[in-house]
């Protein structure tokens, strides 16, 4: 063995570190790293008012590493609070991929004793993503995103949830922010035209300040990380390039993603204050809230039915 790894930075701890936090430079052992991640998520949940006593909290659970870690941490930090969690898994109908992640989702919810609901594209619209992709000119991620959001919202509402938590981490958030800017998508940047928040179960992202590397490491340390197959449709060209660019910048200039999100939040707040909030409008076909006229899910399914 070529060299030792030193000691954990926590006072009095003699355990070897497993990582160096890029933000603070702390060298932490497994126990103190776990405590650090859980503390930051707890601060996000409590400081952001994401959960109130008596709430039902829906948690989007794909069965992948981020949402699995989210459910695990939430079940720990909320265990002494009167909050009912309901995990929601969407089965998009992707042969050779979804079966394994759904098994993983069932396994983690059983282990944590969390109520679990599985909803599917097939039950919702009679088609799997595999068949929709064959008949639609749209990118699979676009079709999937529209329908998945719809099903998650419907399941959260059905469960009586006050909030819908998703496993988006710092890397996901920074990538989306940069993509919105690169696409020149002002509506998304400042959320112009988003219907009244009361029309939707509000989404919360307790992992939004935790880098993906730390989310993964937490999963490994807790024994809940299982390498799963990659979605066969993965590869949204711009996100892939943005991810690579941001990772390079984060390595060369540590803190880039965190600073990006701080600036983006400030931009949203200031520019958003100068714009009018969108009123609630409802889709004439399905009655769901929309940004005006027919909702995207109905638009998408309508063109599918015409074919």
């Amino acid at each position, binding site marked *: *063995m070529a*060299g030792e790894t030193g000691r954990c930075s926590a006072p009095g701890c003699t355990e070897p570190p497993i*990582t160096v936090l890029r933000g603070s430079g702390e060298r932490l052992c497994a126990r103190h790293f776990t405590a650090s991640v859980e503390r930051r998520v707890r601060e996000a949940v409590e400081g952001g008012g994401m959960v109130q006593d008596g709430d039902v909290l829906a948690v989007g659970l794909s069965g992948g590493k981020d949402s699995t870690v989210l459910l695990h941490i939430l079940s720990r930090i909320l265990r002494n609070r009167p909050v009912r969690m309901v995990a929601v898994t969407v089965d998009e109908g992707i042969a050779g991929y979804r079966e394994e992640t759904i098994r993983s989702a069932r396994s983690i919810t059983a282990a944590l004793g969390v109520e679990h609901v599985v909803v599917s594209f097939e039950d919702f619209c009679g088609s799997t993503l595999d068949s929709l992709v064959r008949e639609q000119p749209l990118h699979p991620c676009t079709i999937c995103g529209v329908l998945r959001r719809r099903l998650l919202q419907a399941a959260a509402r059905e469960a009586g949830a006050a909030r819908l938590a998703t496993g988006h981490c710092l890397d996901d958030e920074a990538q989306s922010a940069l993509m919105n800017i690169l696409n020149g998508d002002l509506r998304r940047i400042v959320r112009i035209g988003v219907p009244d928040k009361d029309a939707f179960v509000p989404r919360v992202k307790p992992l939004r300040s935790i880098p993906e590397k730390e989310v993964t490491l937490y999963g490994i340390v807790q024994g809940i990380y299982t390498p799963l197959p990659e979605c066969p449709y993965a590869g949204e060209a711009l996100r892939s390039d943005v991810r690579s660019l941001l990772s390079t910048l984060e390595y060369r200039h540590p803190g880039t993603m965190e600073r990006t999100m701080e600036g983006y939040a400030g931009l949203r707040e200031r520019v958003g204050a100068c714009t009018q909030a969108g009123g609630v409008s409802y889709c004439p076909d399905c009655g769901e809230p929309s940004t005006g006229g027919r909702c995207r899910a109905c638009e998408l399914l309508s063109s599918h039915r015409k074919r």
Partner: protein
Amino acid sequence: MKVYFSPDRTEEVAVVSATVEEVLLMLGVNPVEVIVSRNGALIPEDTVVGGDDEIRVIRFVHGG
């Protein structure tokens, strides 16, 4: 020193003494996108490795 990549790529690296970060860069891997263990134990990127160490690189960032 053997460097195992998940799931099935293995590289033999002739290094007497280098940090994990240096080894990763040598192999064209961004340290932000991976987690590393040595002989089964998770280690930070500034750990010095070499000799007969067995290094496992867990890449969690995928293409899409």
